[in-house]
Each structure stands twice: as C-alpha cells, then as structure tokens.
C-alpha cells in the first residue's frame, strides 16, 4: 500500500465521517482513495474548489459533530492557515494531513520537511498550538491517524499529521493494524436547537476581557497536552556519544547512519520525536545528557534544530545536517556529519565510556 492510501484507509477504519480535499502532488492518491472509498461506506467526500474551501467545509462538518479528515501538501496547507486558526479558536477537532513537498513557493514535488516551523510554531494567526504527529513509516502512519482523531476530540483541537512526499508515495509491506476509534462525547456540536438553548461555535470575543479569558482556556488545554502527550522513540541511546535527532523520513536515514557508525566503532544513537508539538524536550535533554554532541538531521535548512537547541539548553554542542528542495541525504553523508560532530567536540566528562 502507498503511504497516502494507507493513511486514507486508516482514517476510514477509525470512523472518519467526512473528507474534504483538493488535488495536489504528492498527496493526490489520498484524495483519490477517499473519492472511491468514502461513497462506498456511505460517508461524505467532497472535492472542493480550493484548499480554502476544503478546510472550511471541514470547519462546518466538524461544528456539526462529524469526524473529519483533510489532506494537502505544503502550498495547500499554507492556504488552510486561516481556517486552522479559526478552528483552533473555535475549539473544533479536525485531522489535517500534510504530505510535505519542497518549498518555498511552488518549490518542488520532492519530499521535504520545510514545513516544520509552520506546523509546530503557528500555522495561522493568533495564540494557538496544534499537536503535530510525525510518522516515520507507513505502519506508524496508520497507527498515528487513529491517535490523531483521539487527540483532536479529547482536547477539541485541530491535529496535524506531518508526513512527507517519500512517506506518501512509498510502498511498504504492512500488516495494517487498522483500528476503530471510540468517539469522545460532545455537548457542543450543532444539530438545531430543538428542546435546548442555541449553541454558537465561534472564535470571536470582542471584549478584551472575554478574549483573554478564552485564550487562557486555550493555553490551559495546550499545557495539558504538553504535559501528557509528548511522544518519542529512542534507539541505541544508552551509551551514545553522538545523539542524532530526526523525525519522519529523515529518521530512517539517520537510523541507517547510526547502524553504520556503530559498525565503525562510533557510538551513535537516534532520538526520534513522534510529537513535534509538544516537543519531547525533557526527554531529549535526558537522553543527550551523557553525549558529547547532538546532531539534528532534517530535510530542511535548519528548523528542527531550533527545537533541539531549546531542549538541550547549551548543555551539549548541537550540530545540524539538512538537505532541501527534495534532495535527500545518503546515510553515508549523515555518517560523515556524525563523525564531524564527534571529532570537533571534547570528550564527555566521564571520558571515553
């Protein structure tokens, strides 16, 4: 199964009621899969006239209580920023899949991770956060689609599933663990105010006192998410002298580089954040405490590395290796960068362990 198709089918299995999209490479197969499968399941599929319309259809469907998936790729995701801000402000759940491509602008259709900052630091305007889940395999993408719906409904927030062109286009043998996701009871959805007071789903609070109170509520939700939903995976970290930090496709290349480094006697390890927001900062700091260097590997010009530096707080030198534009580093290239990070940093306090 292609990654795009696996994500689509995972959403259907999870109980997605409605899908809205617009064609864009490299996620078009996701839209096409939904075009065929959603009507088969008696569910809603609309190919919108633009990404703007698609995300706003999602806004409406979510307000009406439906479980909604939207997908696009980088330029289309930029168009969705406005409505994502509205949905965050209106506390509307939705799962948005970004199959990232090269940027800026029209960029390329190659795989890239240049939307890291957009996804994690503020997609649209205003004070809000969006949980971001980053799978590094198709099997994990299937798993995270279900988790994304759970998070979206539990916390009443948009959730981003951040993939890239390679994950979307690649085919991997998977023994898919498609799951049905339980629904979180909701007392705010719109169905018509028969026998109850009318409900209003909105983000507008003109009185400064009201908006600050609303923002305080949102911030409390984000603090709750940050406290409880950080996820990461580690490999060979126990004795690592160089800790590589990477997510998604870059993490798979980094894993191979770690294996080759170990074969050569260089003790490298991999720290792989699965939630990019909330970023597992404490966990990374702990994992890297005994290392002499940290190396962020990404398909972007230095975005993930900012969070890595914030997490490490200067305790360990942090290096960066990134390629852009759809160029993907080879494992040997990452291995070279790992060796360089090792060679220019002093030995750990404990000496060579």
């Amino acid at each position, binding site marked *: 199964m292609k990654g795009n198709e696996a994500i689509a089918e995972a959403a259907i299995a999870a109980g997605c*009621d*409605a899908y*809205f999209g617009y064609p864009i490479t490299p996620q078009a197969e996701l839209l096409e899969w939904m075009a065929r499968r959603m009507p088969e399941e008696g569910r*809603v599929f*609309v190919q*919108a*006239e*633009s990404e*703007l*319309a*698609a995300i*706003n*259809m*999602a*806004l*409406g*469907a*979510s*307000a*009406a*209580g*439906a479980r*909604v998936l939207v997908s696009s790729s980088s330029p289309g995701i930029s168009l969705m920023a*406005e*409505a994502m801000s*509205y949905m965050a402000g*209106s506390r509307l759940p939705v799962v948005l899949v970004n199959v990232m491509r090269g940027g800026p602008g029209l960029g390329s259709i190659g795989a890239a991770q240049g939307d890291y900052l957009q996804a994690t630091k503020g997609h649209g305007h205003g004070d809000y956060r969006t949980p971001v889940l980053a799978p590094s395999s198709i099997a994990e993408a299937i798993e995270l689609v279900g988790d994304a719906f759970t998070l979206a409904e539990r916390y009443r927030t948009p959730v981003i599933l951040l993939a890239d062109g390679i994950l979307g286009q690649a085919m991997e043998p998977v023994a898919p663990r498609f799951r049905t996701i339980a629904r979180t009871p909701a007392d705010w959805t*719109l*169905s*018509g*105010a*028969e*026998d109850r007071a*009318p*409900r*209003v*789903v*909105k*983000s*507008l609070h003109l009185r400064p006192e009201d908006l600050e109170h609303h923002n305080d509520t949102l911030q409390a939700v984000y603090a709750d998410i940050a406290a409880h939903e950080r996820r990461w995976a580690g490999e060979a970290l126990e004795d690592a002298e160089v800790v590589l930090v990477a997510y998604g496709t870059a993490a798979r290349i980094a894993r191979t580089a770690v294996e080759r480094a170990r074969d050569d006697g260089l003790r490298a390890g991999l720290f792989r954040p699965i939630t990019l927001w909330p970023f597992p900062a404490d966990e990374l700091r702990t994992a890297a405490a005994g290392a002499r260097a940290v190396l962020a590997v990404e398909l972007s010009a230095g975005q993930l590395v900012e969070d890595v530096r914030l997490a490490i707080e200067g305790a360990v030198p942090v290096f960066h290796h990134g390629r852009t534009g759809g160029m993907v580093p080879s494992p040997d290239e990452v291995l070279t960068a790992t060796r360089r990070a090792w060679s220019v940093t002093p030995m750990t306090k404990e000496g060579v362990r």
Partner: protein
Amino acid sequence: MTATPEVGPLALRRPAAGDPDAPAAPRTIYRRPALLSTQPTSYCPGCGHGIIHRLVAEVLEEMDVAGRTILVGSVGCSVFAYEYLLLDSVESPHGRAAAVATGVKRVRPDRIVFTYQGDGDLAAIGTAEIVHAAARGERITVIFVNNGIYGMTGGQMAPTTLPGQHTTSSPKGRDVETQGYPLPVTEMLSLLPGVAYAARGSVADAGLIGRTKAMIRRAFDVQVEGHGFAIVEVLSTCPVGWGMTPTEAMDHLAAEVMDAYPGGVFVDRAKGIAPSLPAPSGRPLRASGSEA
C-alpha cells in the same frame, strides 16, 4: 347631525354582546418573533439588517423549522447575527460561509442550513466559495444582503458599489476605468443548473419587504423540498456608509440602487422559471470533421 370629535386618550369601545358592529376577537398582527433575541442590536439607525433578520425569523417560525436549522454566520456587520437569531450557529472566516455551510449540510442533510452574508463577504472575498457551492447545487439557502459597501470597516468600496458612488476607498466616486463595474452575482449564479432558486428583493418599502419575505420563504422551501441551491439577494441600506440620513438612504435605495439592480425572481426551477445560457452569435464554431 355632526359627531362630536373625541379628544383625549382613545378609549377602547366595548360594544355590548350581540352588537352587529362588534369587532372580531382581538388578533395579534405584530409581535416580536420568538426567534429574535430581546437584546438591542449593534446595527446603526436605518440599517436594513434588522428588517432582514426579522424576515428570516418570521419565515423560520412560520415553517416551524427553527429547531432543526443551523445558521452559518459571516464576517462584516452581520457577524453578530447569531446574537440576534436564536439558532444553532457557526461562525465562518470572511467569505467562506458557503463552504462552511457545505460541510454542515453534507454531514447533516436532514437539517436546514443557511448562510447570512453581506456583499463584501459574498461578492468579493467569497466569490469562489459561493460560485462553487451554487455549481454543486448544495442544498443550502443563502441570504445575501447587498448594501453596496463595506459597512463594518468604515465604508469602503465593495464589488457591488455603484459607478460613481463615493466611498472611503473611492473618494472621487467609483471610476469604472480603474475600479471596474458592479458584480451582478445573483444574475451570474442564475445561469448555473445547480441553482434551484435565485431572487432579488429589497427593503425599500413595506410592499417590497413583504415580497422579499415571500422570496425568503421560497428559498427555504426549496431547500426543504431538496431542489438545490437557493439564494435571495436583499438590497439594503447603509446610511452611515453612504453618508445619508436613514430616510435619504431609503429614498436612494428605492431609486438609484433598485434601478441598477433589478429585483424579482430569476430562477425557480421547480416552477419552470430558469434563464437559458447565452448562445454565441454569428457563425457557429465547429471542428472541420463534424457535421454542420
């Protein structure tokens, strides 16, 4: 014999039982629809929104569907419509109401879904959304309030502003050479097969308000009957934005605005009213191999 004219407060005459002149039992002819909240609106004196809100409230009450109706709000002066119409409501980003309404209606096809949008919202930033919702024949009702100006932001030129009209962003009057022509949205939408009903009303006088109410009723009936997309454009006033008194604004609406935007029913497909697409004139364009 001359009747003595009554002076002082009018007293209710209570005819005796069996009096042939006795009026029928008292009958309420005017009241606040229960769907309208009692709070004062934020609208300026002479603004048409209050009248149009009331018409929507009356229609939904008469149809007895308010309990299964969802309002999709918009951005502009009418952003607070959900404060005044006591309905389940969702806010939409500027211009996106028709897309939001599509999402609501598709997942709740048994509910009545309508948007309430101004001309800046629908005819400028939301042009793509309204055209494609109409093209898809979404079973929604659109109340399109056209006052020819951006009222909320202080009276700037809208796509619907009349040629020569002075606004804060067309201070010398709308110059069609550089600022283009008014956009006749309802006429444009009328050509689309997905549009089941399209009409243009006005709040310029009581008779027109009554006819406009009938249009709004039909636009909701069409949705209930499942025919397709329905839109009622209501020509309205913005005295503050137009730099007029409320009565001057109503006179201006009745004369210049209604001349520029002819009112009536453009489409009612279920009743056989539908304009045809314009045909090209002159010699038809045909590929060389095709039959004449």
